[in-house]
């Protein structure tokens, strides 16, 4: 049956064509990343001419104050916005999945997903104009452009992504597990903390990773909401990249790519393993109970 349906798709030519297409597109996807890495070791003042191997750009990077302080700020903002996005995203996803009926549900679901597709220039502009208005109305400097305002912007975007990821998991959840807990007398909050939360933990972890990397990468929203002294790393990179090719950018890129590749690989292996273990436990429990 399997072999039959495979041959329905095509003969040897189609299979080879398919393999070739997959390889070609993967080549397209990975070529820029590998050249970026390769040229970070390029010992030449001309960015596109290969002049031998060097670690010079990395040595320079270690004393590049602008990049390093930008990186530190970006990491802080990414950590804070990912954490807050997961909290708000969980609440929003829970609202959308569990409460089918409440006033203004359409408006709510529209507002939750709108930042996903809204051009970032608009999100940045809108938030900035509002923060300026609040500042003028209250005279407080709480919303002075800086880390706090960038965090607000990233949180708006991150919450939308976190909600999508967590919502998908909540929809898949077996409602019987929660019903059983309620039948046994658990209060709503206990049901959430003891049953739902452990079940969606993997989704929370992936949502956190996703929003962390989004925040670490954002240029446009940060540009609108940053002030003097709060230049994030992407803003530093962007301003250098705008002026032309710059080997220091290649070196930063390589470091970031290495860190992200390791984190994502380890993270997804751990998540997949935990997922399998949980599925096995649930299976065992259901067999044992039945």
């Amino acid at each position: 049956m399997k072999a039959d349906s495979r041959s329905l798709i095509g003969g040897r030519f189609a299979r080879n064509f398919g393999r070739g297409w997959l390889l070609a597109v993967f080549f397209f996807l990975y070529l820029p990343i590998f050249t970026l890495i390769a040229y970070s070791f390029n010992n030449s003042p001309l960015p596109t001419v290969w002049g031998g191997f060097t670690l010079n750009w990395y040595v320079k990077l270690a004393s590049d104050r602008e990049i390093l302080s930008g990186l530190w700020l970006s990491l802080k903002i990414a950590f804070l916005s990912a954490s807050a996005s997961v909290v708000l995203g969980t609440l929003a996803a829970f609202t959308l999945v569990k409460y089918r009926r409440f006033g203004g549900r359409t408006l709510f679901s529209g507002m939750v997903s709108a930042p996903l597709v809204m051009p970032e220039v608009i999100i940045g502009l809108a938030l900035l104009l509002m923060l300026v208005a609040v500042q003028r109305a209250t005279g407080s400097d709480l919303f002075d452009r800086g880390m706090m305002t960038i965090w607000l912007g990233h949180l708006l975007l991150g919450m939308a992504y976190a909600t999508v990821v967590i919502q998908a998991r909540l929809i898949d959840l077996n409602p019987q597990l929660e019903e059983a807990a309620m039948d046994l007398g658990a209060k709503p909050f206990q049901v959430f903390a003891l049953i739902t939360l452990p079940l969606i933990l993997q989704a929370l972890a992936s949502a956190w990773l996703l929003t962390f990397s989004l925040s670490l990468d954002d240029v446009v929203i940060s540009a609108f909401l940053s002030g003097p002294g709060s230049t994030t790393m992407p803003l530093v990179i962007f301003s250098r990249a705008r002026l032309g090719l710059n080997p220091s950018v290649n070196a930063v890129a390589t470091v970031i790519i290495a860190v992200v590749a390791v984190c994502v690989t380890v993270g997804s292996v751990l998540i997949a393993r935990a997922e399998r273990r949980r599925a096995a436990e649930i299976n065992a429990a259901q067999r044992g109970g039945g």
Partner: protein
Amino acid sequence: MPALKSAPSEPRKGLAGRVHGLLRGRSVVIGLPYGWLLAFFMAPFLIVLNYSISEMGAVRPENIVTLGDGVMKLSIKFGNYLAIFGDALYVKAYLSSLKYAAITTVVCLVLGYPFAYFMARAKPALQPALLMAVMLPFWTSFLLRVYAWKGLLDEGGLVSDFLLATGLDGWMAASGMIGTPGKFMNTPFSLVIGMSYTYLPFMILPLYANLAKMDLRLLEAAADLGASRFKAFWLITVPLSRAGIIAGAMLVFIPCVGEYVIPELLGGPQTLMIGRVLWDEFFSNNDWPMASTVAVVLVLLIVVPLAIFNKYQAEAQERGR
């Protein structure tokens, strides 16, 4: 706020009890994200709208509604909108944003459909690894991947050298993809390459999800009835993947229309995009009302594709259940 309507709860005594009642369960779960979105998503938009239709005072827009001498005056300024639609620069920028977003969508579809198709028909054991390999570039910095194309397309870059060696640049210059033979950066070509590269995974993932779910017995039935493989593909697989095609196309098209970073790094004078116009109005001209007006018109532009996308998403979800 309608959202704070709390669930019917048992009567409590005293203020503390009532506050406690309000802060529990449902109303907090709904109220917190709702309130946050109203304050930081809805309100900012209303302010942008307000900027675009108000007479500007010294530092902030004048009130639209004014009360005085027992008369309520409503003053709405359309000047900014008239300026946008009367000025060829803005109209051109909107049109070219739509054009390049559409070209990018087609390029992504042409590259992505066969890719998603062959991925969905690959050995099941291989599929998670392929999926991971598509997702991995998505995790590495978007900004850096766009920057990398600068190095590839600049004079002496790998792709630039390759295209020169094949002699394709003469044809590309003749067809208007690049300005002069041999120069690939800051042209429509580099812009479309950069946007297609960035958004290709957004095309592949919904298509793959759709094609992987397809019932292969339908193809068997078609073969039994005498259809050739190509005919079966064209008459069965393609129509069945319509929802995936539309979802992917919208996920590429919508963000491309308002894109700023890619046109700024890879585009040139020929490829004026509206995201850059908005940015320049704000950062270079300091014209906040005009920037707001550009933003409102941009939102109106993406509302239609967005509605199409939501309709098909809802349909796909219905079927998925």
